[in-house]
């Protein structure tokens, strides 16, 4: 059935988009770091998974146990020793955004350079869980399904953590107004650092999982950065549910256009959808109204 055959693969593709965007919702939406090196971190995690798999035969799913804590520590250090100073230095959010764009642009080059030295510019790819699974007549790859599953689980868990726990509430307060949060006794620097580190952990999840089915090289980071930004912005900054919905929506639309209209127009269609959403809702699907 064509409908199922569009919706299911679309959701799977969208799950990947949502997955690579989750970390950015925390890093940008909460910690207020517009992280241009986001995609490079993702590719670095992919390289990590590749090395562990081809070198030690370690399954990418097991690699998560290693990659995520490492990424969290690295990102926390990055925040603590670099970004926090910038956040303290700038008075308003606009200046913080500009500073974070500039400094993460530098970080982008550092990560990319390190990957080039280690792996060169070639493409890398390996096969893991590349097994067909037929659901309601539509054949899907297990590795891509795993990514969708993780997107839903991790997204849901982060959403619950943000809305149901004390720390989560404090983190959301920072996202809304860092100064006001400070006034009510929230340790903004510590929690922002935590959110950034946690976002870094989610980037690692995304990188490790997409490495199972995408071909990547050291120069590809910017593609992921931009895709993640589009998803985050379309969903509404700082809104995890928004990112999930936006990612899934983009996936379904892309698949539908490929099957029903013309595969040549898929990317044009997704950008048109994105621009259209912003024109109707200038702060994204689930965004707060602009003040």
């Amino acid at each position: 059935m064509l409908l199922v055959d569009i919706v299911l693969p679309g959701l799977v593709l969208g799950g990947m988009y949502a997955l690579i965007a989750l970390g950015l919702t925390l890093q940008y939406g909460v910690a207020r770091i517009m992280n241009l090196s986001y995609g490079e971190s993702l590719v670095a995690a992919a390289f990590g998974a590749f090395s562990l798999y081809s070198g030690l035969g370690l399954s990418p799913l097991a690699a998560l146990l290693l990659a995520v804590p490492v990424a969290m520590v690295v990102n926390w250090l990055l925040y603590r020793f670099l970004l926090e100073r910038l956040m303290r230095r700038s008075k308003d959010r606009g200046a913080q955004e500009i500073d974070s764009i500039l400094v993460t642009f530098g970080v982008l080059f550092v990560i990319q350079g390190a990957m080039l030295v280690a792996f060169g510019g070639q493409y890398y790819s390996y096969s893991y869980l590349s097994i067909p699974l037929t659901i309601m007549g539509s054949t899907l790859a297990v590795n891509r399904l795993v990514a969708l599953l993780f997107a839903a689980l991790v997204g849901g868990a982060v959403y619950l953590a943000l809305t149901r726990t004390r720390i989560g509430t404090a983190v959301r307060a920072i996202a809304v107004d860092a100064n006001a949060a400070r006034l009510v006794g929230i340790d903004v620097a510590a929690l922002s650092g935590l959110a950034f580190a946690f976002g870094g952990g989610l980037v690692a999840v995304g990188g490790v999982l997409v490495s199972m089915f995408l071909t990547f090289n050291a120069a590809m980071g910017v593609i992921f950065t931009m895709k993640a930004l589009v998803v985050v912005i379309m969903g509404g900054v700082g809104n995890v549910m928004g990112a999930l919905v936006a990612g899934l929506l983009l996936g379904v639309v892309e698949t539908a256009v490929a099957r029903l209209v013309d595969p040549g127009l898929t990317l044009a269609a997704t950008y048109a959808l994105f621009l259209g959403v912003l024109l109707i809702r200038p702060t994204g699907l689930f965004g707060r109204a602009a003040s």
Partner: protein
Amino acid sequence: MTGPKRALLWCAGLALAAATVTYPLYANGYYLALGISVLYFTILATAWAMFSGPTRYISLATVAFFGLGAYTAAVLGETMPWPVVLLAAAGVGAFTAAITGLSTLRLSGIYFVIFSFGLAELIRQLVIWYEVNIHKSVGRYLFSAVTQDILYWQLLGLTAIVFLVGWLLGRSRYGLALRAIGADETAASHSGIDATRVKLGVFILSATFMAVTGAVMAPRWTYIDPAIAFNPTISFQVVIMALLGGAGSLFGPVLGVIPLVLLFEVLSATLPNHFSIVLGLIFVLIVMVLPNGVIGLFGTGRWRVPTGGPVAARAGTSDAPLLAVEGVSKSFSGLRAVDDVSFKVAPGEIVGIIGPNGSGKTTLLNTLSGALKPSSGTIRFGGIVLNGLRAHQIARLGLARTFQLVRVMPDLTVAENVAAAQLFSTSNGSSATASELLDLVGLGTVHAAPAGDLTYIDQKRLELARALALQPRLVLLDEWLAGLNPSELETGIALIAKLRDRGFTIIMVEHVMDAIRALCGHCIVMNAGCVIARGGPDEVLSDPKVVAAYLGDDDA
């Protein structure tokens, strides 16, 4: 500066200018190529900062216009004379910017950033689709005899034009208007600035330069395909260079372009394999030690402020009401914040609007000043129906306001804040200059300070001066006296009384009843969106309905 010294500087300047113009005659091919890189990024970064600097809309759409220009040159380059090609590229750039600008400029912050990126990608995808399906070939070949010398001079000419235009723009009222919009768009609109049109105009201007640059560069590469023409790293490089140099001033971007182009060059030569890492580290370091961009090292030059717009109360003398509000209502998805309100204000009168918090006072003011559109009812101001007019149009008619939560434009100086409101004044009457107004509100001594540095009360004064600079016939004061200590309150009341004596008509929303008693001849009391009483201050304040509204129904 002494005469000889100045002459020496001029001589040095002319010599350097001559050296720049004759550069291709003595530089070898490589230095010429380096010069070309510097020039083409200078044009792009300066054009970018022309719009994005003052407004702080970080645009990633640079390459969309650059690429369209390059494609225009590739399509027309071999059939049309070169000046026609450049004009066509300018036209394509301006046209695309006009269309996209209309839809995008209402977004703000990061939403605009990513939108502009999405826009560049969408244009690229559409160009690809067109080329694949209609032209049946994506790559375009452009064989031309353009040598590096000619390319350099073309770019140099374009650089001169972009600086000239930028300089003129900075001196014109549009330059200040643009900065006012960047500082606080709402305040700017209520100061009579047509934010949309100013932004759109400068956006188009900036895009035109980018498109022409693309057209000039295209023949150098022989082969143009979407990946080359719409290479997104160009957008990023331009943003980084402009921000690094300092996007807030005309010559800031070039100070970012030169060091970065050279840095890229030196690093890629000395460390081809570790280029990225070293570049990244140096970049991080630069950002950490240069918080205000390279231009910050030189101290930011203040922009020229157009001085003088005449200012006065244009008090009417007739007895016809200046403002007539008839049956105005405003609902927010079912909630009627203002419900069928009618009243009139005669020239020279001070009308007080009072009522408990949440009774719809500020919403009413917002419908008057154009911040909100009334759901129903009519507002006439000096005989003109205000319904449907936008904030800046209403401001230009002579209806000025202050805000409950004070809104000054923090990066502009005190004097510039006032000057911004005089930019698009349509009246010819004159009796007060900006400095007189600042004296009037007691800010005469701090006119050069950034407005953001003022104390709360001084910001309120400034807001009032800015409102008066519109030469208003009617001033709306929204809790202007709130938060003042007793002695400040006294000064404040005296100031409003002084305005009344000068013939200004005023509507004030206020909780300070002493002020209402002292100043207002007539009061309107609102509760839950409705007018529940009207009359003299003492009369309404003793009305049982008003007492009940303030103290709660149970006690009535």
